[in-house]
């Protein structure tokens, strides 16, 4: 299992630059959010579609960064590993409702467990989580590579980042 943290761009400013909705709580960010030149270039990880449904079913609200009615593309990798989308967590959500963050992560963890059902051997998952650390919109990215069970430990890492 590996967890690495790094500085990340100002998500809200970048969303404005790309003509996207500005995420206020939870959001999925496109794969190429940092380097896309224009809005039409944005591509999401394929699992976003399913994870959105699961969050919606659990009553978890997210900001869809794509504008209403905008056609979005998804990248599918036919691999046995699971590459999950980048999840953005706003400072206000972390401060006001950390339980919701834990719930959102556990839904992702359950999704991965279901995905691996009937498969043999240890399968790797990869996920980036972008955490807004303060009201000045400074963000850090947590990159996780490991098994599905380890995903739940991320809640504590996220909390520690916020408390820095």
């Amino acid at each position, binding site marked *: 299992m590996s967890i690495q943290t790094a500085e990340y761009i100002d998500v809200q400013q970048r969303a404005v630059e790309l003509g996207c909705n500005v995420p206020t709580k939870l959001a999925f960010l496109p794969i190429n959010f940092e380097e896309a030149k224009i809005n039409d270039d944005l*591509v999401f990880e394929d699992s976003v579609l399913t994870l959105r*449904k699961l969050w919606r079913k659990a009553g978890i609200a997210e900001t869809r960064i794509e504008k209403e009615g905008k056609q979005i*593309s998804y*990248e599918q990798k*036919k*691999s046995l590993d699971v590459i999950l989308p980048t999840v953005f967590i706003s400072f206000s959500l972390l401060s006001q409702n950390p339980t919701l963050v834990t719930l959102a992560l556990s839904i992702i963890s359950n999704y991965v467990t279901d995905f691996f059902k*009937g498969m043999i*051997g240890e399968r790797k998952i990869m996920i980036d989580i972008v955490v807004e650390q303060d009201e000045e919109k400074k963000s850090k990215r947590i990159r996780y590579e490991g098994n599905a069970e380890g995903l739940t430990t991320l809640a504590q890492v996220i909390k520690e980042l916020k408390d820095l």
Partner: protein
Amino acid sequence: MNERVKQFYIEFSEITNDLQKFCFITRSQEFQLEACNTAQELQEKAGKLKQQMISEDDEDAANAMLSIEEMITALLSELRMWIALKGEDADAAWSQLVSAQYAARTAMQAHMVASHLDGYTNHLHDLERVLFPPLAFFSPSYIIEHSTCSICGQEYGECDHIVGKAYMGQICTRVIEKVKEITEVSLVDEAANKRARITKITDDNGIWRDIMTWQVVPNDAANA
């Protein structure tokens, strides 16, 4: 669980436990072919009961029957793999093994009735490693513009169905309608699609060989 499904499950368990004794390379092909016929009859019966459960709107029972159907498919595919191996048809044997693995996985996804299949999936994995040489697979990545749900036909992102879950005796899959771009094709040791594999390679002397049998095969590129 629905009473008729419970009764069928007992019949299924008795028959499949018996048929498993033919899942060895030493067993006579005559018996293995008979076992395939028996499994096929059982599969047809399972399909009919599943349809009844669907018509009665009993989703749990329909999903349980789907799971049972898939377990029968897995066994049938394994039997066919042994037959193909004895007939020296390695490609067909591989294809049947992959079918067995996929069917076992679908059975586990469809209903709890197959939750005990971990041992069987391990067995199939062991067969893969022992019976076949190491293989390499193609793993493509592509950008999808439009996909629909196999259950309701709506745009996949718009409905509530989840890929890999069973709904009234049917597994939800995502139907890719429009691919914008193929971004890469990688060579991998373990792939999601085990049928997308390399079939021939060149040996140290530059001779083309079938990767399964090591027989010399024509170089299609040179003949083209």
